[in-house]
């Protein structure tokens, strides 16, 4: 067990370095969402409540987390395509250690994302600073696991050429179906139902309600949390199973 945890730590460190040393990943994981946070706030916050900081900052965090899917999936598929992973399969490491290495590497990235966006939001609008922000940072790690799970699934399933396209479905789904960027009044009820069933809106709502300190604990916090967790478990489990099958087929 001790040896396994040392290997997981080594894999996590390596995966984190691989991702952070690619400038393009920093642009999409941090730069683009930060730019949108500032831009959307200054353009729209007086026009529509959708872009008030209490909604915008958590929404941007959920949006930035969708890029975790792209980068974890890309790293996994590139590793699978190269002889690097074959080399590691000859070490005593088990498949769960490889998966844990990919997942754990993305958590510090998610932590930096939420801290950076919350602090920026607080600097722009000082009234946004509150203790709930700390809860927001911690709870965003739960929603990050959903998008990392998508990455594990796609990284196990697709080659590196397909990852970009597949991950962009999640990124687009998160943007459009989270209900972040447009008011939902007047939208067809069936569409709203779909948005509530899929995990994108609940993941954004969960962080929003934690930060705003909602009193409707079950409807606003527990319900979206259950949806997010259910998707996370199913998607990650499917990813792990597929990874195991592919590993045995090497």
């Amino acid at each position, binding site marked *: 067990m001790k*040896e396994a945890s*040392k*290997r997981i*730590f*080594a*894999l996590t*460190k*390596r995966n984190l*370095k*691989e991702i952070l*040393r*690619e400038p393009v990943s920093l642009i999409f994981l941090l730069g683009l969402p930060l730019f949108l946070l500032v831009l959307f706030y200054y353009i729209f916050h007086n026009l529509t409540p959708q872009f008030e900081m209490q909604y915008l900052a958590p929404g941007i965090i959920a949006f930035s987390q969708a890029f975790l899917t792209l980068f974890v999936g890309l790293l996994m598929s590139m590793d699978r395509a*190269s*002889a*690097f992973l*074959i*080399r*590691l*399969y*000859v*070490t*005593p*490491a088990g498949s769960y250690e490889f998966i844990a290495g990919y997942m754990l590497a993305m958590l510090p990235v998610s932590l930096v994302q939420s801290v950076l966006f919350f602090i920026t939001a607080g600097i722009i609008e000082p009234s946004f600073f509150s203790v709930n922000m700390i809860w927001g940072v911690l709870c965003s790690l739960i929603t990050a696991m959903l998008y990392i799970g998508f990455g594990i699934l796609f990284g196990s399933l697709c080659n590196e050429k397909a990852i970009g396209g597949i991950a962009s479905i999640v990124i687009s789904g998160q943007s459009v179906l989270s209900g972040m960027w447009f008011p939902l009044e007047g939208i067809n009820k069936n569409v709203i139902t779909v948005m509530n069933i899929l995990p994108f809106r609940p993941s954004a709502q969960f962080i929003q309600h934690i930060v705003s300190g909602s009193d409707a604990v079950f409807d606003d916090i527990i319900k979206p949390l259950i949806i997010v967790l259910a998707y996370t478990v199913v998607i990650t489990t499917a990813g792990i199973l597929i990874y195991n099958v592919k590993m*045995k087929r*090497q």
Partner: protein
Amino acid sequence: MAAIRTEKLRKEYKDTVAVDGLDLEIEEGELFSLLGVNGAGKTTTIKMLTTLTEPTSGDAFILGHSIKEDKKKIKEQIDVSMQQTAVARNLSVDENLEFYCRMRGKSKEETENIKKRTYQIFGLDKVAKKRTKQLSGGWQRKLSIALALAGEPKVLFLDEPTLGLDVIARRELWRAIESLKGKMTIVLTTHYMEEAEALSDRIGIMKDGKLLFVGDKTALFEKTKTSSVEDAFIKTVEEGV
């Protein structure tokens, strides 16, 4: 005890037989070259011996452990360098070695000693701090093979280690491989006959998944009535001598 012993080792893929009843023994400390044209079954044999692929039937024993039953024990004592370069691209040479030593359960002190030794054998100290993706193909391949040594394996599999390298880089790698002779058992597959001739203690020639010849160079030359490994290989494969 033989370092490697195979017993009627066989691998089928749908309607293709990649390895057909391989019986082979390789002694500890030996450098054994496995030769064959493309599709002869060399890489599939290596994949089975390194536990990456399950055999369809038969078995093989690495240092007495079955590739079917004792995968974990085998993995602790072997390593492999496959045809393609296998390094972490965004890590420096130094970080690659450190990472791989950790994966092999080495302590910090052991890792430092391994790094020193590896730098000495492969001359990697010149590029130790450079990220791997900035290195030439030759340096990357050297690192790739150096990583296979980092775990201090008792049995090392080198699958076409000098493929695509220029003649200088190839000769440097030969010297590195030669310096390992006798310290561990090495199984080498290659398409370069002069490589097999220069490095091997014994040679095996495969065709269509079957082993046509096993023995040292003298026995090969006598059998085929030739004087070079290349001529002997061609005669064996084409005429089945």
